[in-house]
């Protein structure tokens, strides 16, 4: 009880800080310095219609690299954690009743569609809302579906890892190419910018985002797979 009271008091203090922030907050009337630059220069410099994508993949590409690294790391660590002290010998040997026919069929039907949707989302990331992360999450949901239909299914970790690693390497490689061929790390202008709004535009962004999509998908899948392979406690 004392703990609750104390926490409440502390949060009241924090709420004071937040209240201060809200009170002193005044919405901008116009875009600030950075935002204005992005609004005005993205089209010609980057060639991406979706400015958020341009920022994510290019201007703040390093963040994004870090971001996929976070997922990569999480996937690796989840694997590490869950294999930590894991008894050898693989599967639990537990027999579950097979999933319903409906679900099985649905899955077989849906998985390719979902994968396609995911690919669409990240390939068009520079044009429309969505991109590698969203697309990757969608890809992972396909795997999720597979796992749901057959909890004992073992997803090929090798494949997932290979995709993940390759995508990551390509990402870094493109970044390095930016230094060699263009103005700096992760500069997208190693490829022609093309025309705004077209699929093949915005330089390397679609490529990068696609690989991000693959990578994110692989990473989420790997996490899900690892968690699903845990044993009941």
């Amino acid at each position, binding site marked *: 009880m004392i703990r609750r009271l104390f926490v*409440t008091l502390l949060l009241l203090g924090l709420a004071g800080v937040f209240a201060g922030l809200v009170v002193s*907050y005044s919405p901008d009337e116009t875009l600030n310095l950075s935002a204005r630059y992005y609004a005005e220069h993205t089209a010609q410099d980057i060639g991406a219609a979706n*400015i958020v994508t341009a920022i994510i993949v290019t201007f703040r590409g390093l963040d994004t690299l870090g971001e996929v690294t976070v997922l990569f790391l999480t996937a690796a660590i989840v694997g590490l954690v869950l294999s930590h002290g894991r008894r050898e010998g693989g599967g639990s040997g537990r027999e579950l009743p097979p999933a319903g026919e409906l679900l099985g069929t649905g899955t077989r039907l849906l998985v390719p569609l979902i994968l396609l949707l995911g690919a669409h989302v990240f390939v068009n990331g520079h044009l429309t809302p969505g991109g590698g992360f969203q697309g990757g999450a969608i890809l992972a949901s396909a795997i999720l579906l597979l796992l749901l239909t057959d909890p004992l299914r073992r997803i090929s970790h090798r494949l997932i890892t290979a995709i993940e690693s390759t995508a990551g390497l390509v990402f870094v490689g493109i970044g390095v190419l930016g230094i060699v061929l263009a103005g700096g790390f992760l500069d997208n202008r190693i490829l022609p910018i093309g025309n*705004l709004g077209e699929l093949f535009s915005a330089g390397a962004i679609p490529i990068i985002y696609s690989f991000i999509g693959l990578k994110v998908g692989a990473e989420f899948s790997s996490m899900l797979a690892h968690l699903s392979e845990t044993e009941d406690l």
Partner: protein
Amino acid sequence: MAYIAMATGFVLILIGLYGALTNRNILRMIVAFTVANTGVNLVMVAVGYLHGRTAPILDASVPVAEAAERIIDPVPQALVLTAIVIGVGVTALMLAYAYKLYESKRTLDISAFKDLKW
């Protein structure tokens, strides 16, 4: 509107933290943290909101030339995107930990893991 979202966000943060700091159950703590993270995301997006503008996507309705007057600030959105992904990463990690912790002591009570102290 920005104010509403912002206030909601802050409230979510506080609620989340309250939950994380008072629930002894590790899974509940993690749930509470996701709530707090959502709150943070709300606050961030709200900060970038400009009244009466559209999403920062150049298309037919937002020509390049008018972009600076028509769109809202894209930066917070980019940041939030990153934050969400990082958040899910951390959540996944914490969940894996929770599983292992449960495996080690057969309990999810955080106060049971006090072997290390002082």
